[in-house]
């Protein structure tokens, strides 16, 4: 198990390194004349050159990347070229919003999908059809369209919840709950649709395994076999999909935060990336990718715990 853990960690670190380098490379290749943008069209050539030097843009690419990497691993993500604000600090303020949204969604998705998938996978028939239709619909209907519908119906029409805004959980729990409910609902729908399908087919596949019949032939009740053996067998594929969906959730969070005017990372991505502010974009990409990598690592470890055979590969 330790070797397994070490292997996965090494792979994760390598992945982070490669992505950070590629992003840095691509961002540097873009011919955005930052200094000119900052100083305006009237600025003299020497002022622009001076500004470039101040930003460190006159140095070779690899040296700049090494600098960035060196300070990034120490938690210093630099300052924004345009606002001069400390990037790590800005992200630190906004991260809790996105985290609470994404975590709430993950929990809701996991519970709802497990329940729906088990229901459909063991009952079949009508239950099956419902989950199937929900699954395909959630997969193909654009998330932001669903989000808009939710805003129109619950926020504008019924006025059950505020349509926009955010109250931190530290200020008021009920306030937080009321502002996070609709975004979480909007974000969960698609995820539940996909994951419940996955749980359903995994449950059906495990339930058809020979060993399930053998266990039942020894006098175990169908329910205890489902809860103990079928669920455990179905967990690994379901967790894999949950891990993949997390990536999608981050993308979805961008749109959802924009629509509900939540002051999170996603809204920041929309607002701050348009002008090629390299330190900010790098930080955003890395924060998202670290989130993805951590989730995948957790999924891998859980699968390894649940299924001893998975530890071998």
């Amino acid at each position, binding site marked *: 198990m330790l070797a397994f853990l070490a292997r996965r960690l090494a792979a994760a670190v390598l992945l982070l390194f490669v992505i950070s380098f590629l992003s840095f490379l691509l961002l540097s290749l873009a011919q*955005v004349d930052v200094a000119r943008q900052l100083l305006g069209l009237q600025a003299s050539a020497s002022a622009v050159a001076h500004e470039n030097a101040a930003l460190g843009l006159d140095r070779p690419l690899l040296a700049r990347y090494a600098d960035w990497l060196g300070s990034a691993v120490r938690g210093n993500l630099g300052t924004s070229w345009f606002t001069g604000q400390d990037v790590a600090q800005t992200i630190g303020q906004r991260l809790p919003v996105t985290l609470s949204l994404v975590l709430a969604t993950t929990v809701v998705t996991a519970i709802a999908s497990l329940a729906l998938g088990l229901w459909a996978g063991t009952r079949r028939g009508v239950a099956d059809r419902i989950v199937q239709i929900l699954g395909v619909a959630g997969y193909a209907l*654009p998330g932001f369209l669903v989000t808009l519908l939710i805003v129109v119906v619950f926020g504008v029409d019924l006025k059950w919840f505020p349509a926009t805004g955010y109250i931190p959980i530290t200020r008021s729990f009920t306030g937080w709950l009321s502002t996070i409910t609709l975004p979480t609902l909007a974000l969960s729908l698609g995820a539940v649709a996909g994951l419940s399908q996955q749980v359903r087919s995994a449950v059906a596949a495990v339930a058809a395994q020979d060993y399930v*019949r053998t266990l039942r032939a020894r006098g175990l009740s169908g329910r205890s076999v489902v809860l103990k053996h079928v669920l455990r067998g179905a967990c690994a594929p379901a967790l894999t999909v949950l891990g993949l969906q997390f990536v999608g959730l981050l993308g979805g969070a961008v749109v959802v935060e924009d629509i509900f005017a939540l002051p999170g990372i996603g809204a920041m991505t929309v607002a701050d990336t348009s002008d090629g502010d390299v330190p900010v974009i790098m930080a955003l990409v890395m924060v998202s990718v670290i989130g993805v990598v951590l989730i995948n690592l957790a999924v891998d470890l859980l699968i390894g715990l649940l299924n001893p055979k998975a530890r071998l590969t």
Partner: protein
Amino acid sequence: MRAPSPRSPLRAVLRNPLGAGSAAVLLLVLAAVLLAPVLRPGGAQSSNILDAYDGAAAGHPFGFDGAGRDELAMLLYGGRATLGEAGLALLIALILGLPLGLCAGYFAGRFDAVGSWAVNLVMALPGMVVLLAARAVLGPTTVVLMVVLGVLIAPSFFRLARGVAADLRGELFIDAARVAGLPAWRILTRHVLVAVRAPVLIQASLVAGVAIGMQAALGFLGISTGVSAPSWGGMLSDAYTSIYTHPILMLWPGLALGLTTAALLLLAVALRDALEDRPGQASARRTRRPEPVRVVPTPAAAAGPARAAARSPLLSIRGLTVAYAGPQGAEREVVHGVDLDVRPGEVLGLVGESGSGKTQTALSVLGLLPLGGRITGGSVLIDGAETVGADERALRRLRGGVVGYVPQEPMSNLDPCFTIGSQLAEPLRAVLGLGRREAAARVLDLLRAVEIADPARVARSYPHEISGGMAQRVLIAGAVSCEPRLLVADEPTTALDVSVQAEILDLLRRLQQDQNLGLLLVTHNLGVVADLCDRVAVMRAGAIVETGEARQILHAPEHEHTRALLDAVLDDAPVRAPWQARPTRSVA
């Protein structure tokens, strides 16, 4: 009736109302969008601010938007942008993902390792963040963004193609093509591409929906297209600013977007249904999901007077019929009125070729027929109790404690996620009500009873850590763990090597004699019958053709089918004479 030509899934899709409907909607949308210059030659840009927010007017059925532009023209030209750009992304995803995935799956090895690593890398990227970052770097040129989007969704095709190709690589018909001398590219196009075509079509339909959604989302965020060029997402964004005053403006672009994506997904569902109806397709070998069935109770009285006589106190079957749900709800009977008796301490061999119904009969005794199968009539008495039509709880009381089951495949009958010890302890605790420690001790006794040398180590092992012969011993231990009086063994040695088979037969014989078990032994091997059975029932095509003492059946069979089975045994066939040189080789 089934479609007359099973080789034309496209026709099957169109015959399905769901498929025909969604295809019609898609065609309509596509035609409208393509004909936009004809329908609205003026383009979408002509606006009159005085018309802003006006409702439907002559020649303007959908009214005007906030800038006084004609909604219909906006929809048509917006659709051009949205659908065209989504199509571009889809095309790029297909071009990148499909061939690379096929090659990665088929060639495996280093190519696969590199390809899969790259795909995992792309999949770890949050798409929306990358798109936004790409826009920052590359500028708001839609075409470039759609190329990026195509790269981002290419993994879905890569993984699909890779999975199918990797599955096929292990198939013997691919080996056969290689032995036949077909070059790799030919195998890929002839065998692999054919198998992957259907799932890719389904996936493409779904991904097209996703791409349209993404394109619209980018437009909504004000990113993809410039301010001037209309798109469905941009229209929604404009409408959203006036959601409190003119919510109706959200309707048309929302409807267009929803309708198009919904049609695409329904088309995918119809495609899947049509393709999965084709039996034998490598990618869709799953059987049709049957409706849930309930066992219909049939009174024992249904059996004739002769049958009612002399029923065994341990296991007695009369007039058993088993049927399976076929397509379109029709039932196919596979066991037609079987009569069997197993007396205490007796070994009955149930013999027949594949498809003769012997396994179905055995599983009926346990009440554990596979999905779609059910007992349609007859009577099965176990220990004097009627089990046909009995509820699950009554059956459960019999399983384990009265009837034990030894399956055929040793490996697939152990749960890979649990240790041997915990799997064996579970029924001990549930059925016999033993405590944790007692159960663990009893597990070691059981493993010792099936002649396992190091019971403590085996109890701690996971199934993949033990051999097939060992696994079969574990399964026998599980079958006798709750001290049943009847064992149902379904081809218990078929998957084993002969020397292991001999050991397992010895073990079964010893357990059977020590505990005076009744044994219903399903087998196709007449040698096994001679080795173990007291009596034999010979099955053919769902019915018993002959029953008798083992010696009589093997040495003086009465039914011609039994004779045919015995004649086919090669043990007494002449050995082939030594080779002699032939002068020349003749041609076939």
